[in-house]
């Protein structure tokens, strides 16, 4: 399997250890990754709200790059996945929009034809590789009680993204079970983490995060597992803000799925990718609680 990796700005520039975990596991599942000069996807809420034509054309440019290289795109961020999938949907279903966009792309020597597919790494792992193959690669099962957060932009709109059931998602649960974890159901599993309005109103954004985490904490989890860097920052660093703002005492370790997958596979170098976390795994899958270093790269903006 060959993909253009679309790490997205948040992973490549703020959470490179997540990118590392993806590149570490990839060869073990015969995933070959190439890098292309992508821009921001662009960010699915603010950029599209500011100028939907700019959003669509930049998305089309990214899609065209992968087309030119003859590969499909594998996204690692839910936001990039939604943004590129929605761009593709608009371009493929509205020929007049596609024509307009291609007029602009022509100026920069590109064309969107409509041949490229956009996948999220969760789909590649779940659909192309499969739970059994993942289980076969697990050396050190990590036996913790986990809450998963699928993320708005992997789930909705379901009829376009088609990654999992938008109301009762199960696939990330199955993936964490494959590495030995117990996946706990909780009330607000499909709720937003609040990231989308962090730049607009912090009280509201962290109020949403508080609601979400209250719901998570009700089932007494040991870790949270996400498949999106923006959600990762919301939970990992945002919980401290919620603690200050609303007098809470959350202390929940948060992992991007491929990080704990790499740990469960016992891959060499896994210590270095987890060293940015507030609560760490050893390569043997043992949680070692550490003091809390400030995470400069991961403060929620």
């Amino acid at each position: 399997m060959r993909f253009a990796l679309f790490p997205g700005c948040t992973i490549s520039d703020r959470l490179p250890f997540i990118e590392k975990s993806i590149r570490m596991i990839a060869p073990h599942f015969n995933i070959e990754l190439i890098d292309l000069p992508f821009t921001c996807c662009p960010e699915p809420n603010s950029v599209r709200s500011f100028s939907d034509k700019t959003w669509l054309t930049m998305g089309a440019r990214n899609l065209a790059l992968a087309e030119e290289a003859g590969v499909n795109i594998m996204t690692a961020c839910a936001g990039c996945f939604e943004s590129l999938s929605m761009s593709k949907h608009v371009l493929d279903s509205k020929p007049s929009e596609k024509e307009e966009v291609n007029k602009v792309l022509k100026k920069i020597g590109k064309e969107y034809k409509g041949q490229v597919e956009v996948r999220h790494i969760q789909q590649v792992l779940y659909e192309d590789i499969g739970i059994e193959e993942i289980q076969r690669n697990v050396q050190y099962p990590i036996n913790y009680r986990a809450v998963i957060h699928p993320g708005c932009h992997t789930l909705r709109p379901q009829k376009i993204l088609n990654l999992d059931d938008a109301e009762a998602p199960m696939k990330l649960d199955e993936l964490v079970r494959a590495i030995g974890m117990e996946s706990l159901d909780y009330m607000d599993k499909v709720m937003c983490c609040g990231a989308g309005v962090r730049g607009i109103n912090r009280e509201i954004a962290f109020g949403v995060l508080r609601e979400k985490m209250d719901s998570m904490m009700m089932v007494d989890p040991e870790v949270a597992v996400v498949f999106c860097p923006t959600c990762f920052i919301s939970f990992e660093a945002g919980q401290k803000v919620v603690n200050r703002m609303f007098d809470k005492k959350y202390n929940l370790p948060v992992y991007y799925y491929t990080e704990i997958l790499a740990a469960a596979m016992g891959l060499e170098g896994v210590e270095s990718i987890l060293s940015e976390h507030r609560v760490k795994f050893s390569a043997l899958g043992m949680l070692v609680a550490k003091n809390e270093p400030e995470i400069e790269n991961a403060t929620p903006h």
Partner: protein
Amino acid sequence: MERTTDADRINEIQHSAQPCFQCGICAASCPIFRVAPDFNPRMAVDEVLRTGTVAMTGREWFCAYCLMCEERCPMEVALSEILIDIKNLSANDGKVPPSIIEMMDVIRFTGKVSHASKRTEKKRRELGLPELPKPDVDEVQTIFEMTGALDRLMRFREAEVEPE
């Protein structure tokens, strides 16, 4: 690229919100409404439907674009898309939260939304990550020019100088 006129866009919004029978499921599903009841996604479009203009409150920017309303609407009204349309109308008038302007400026000059700090660059090297190919910023400039983003940035700055 030709811009849809405001009237066209408002007609489109009115048309796509037509099936709404005000059941309130969208509001009940909205995470923002849950913590800030001033923002009711249905009410945010109500004014456009009734008066054909965008309200001056700027509340549309509180939408987190989580798409819960759209997913759950029994009439398949895509409220989150409608809110994107409304935000575009506001942006066209220069009414945009400053954080979004900052983001657009960073994209305009780098193609990305976050600067790779010195610390991240160092971290990438330590982790043995490849240097990612950089996008050609001139291409981004051309897209900004031809798709109206530059105009909107300018209009925001004009609006800033002359507040109402």
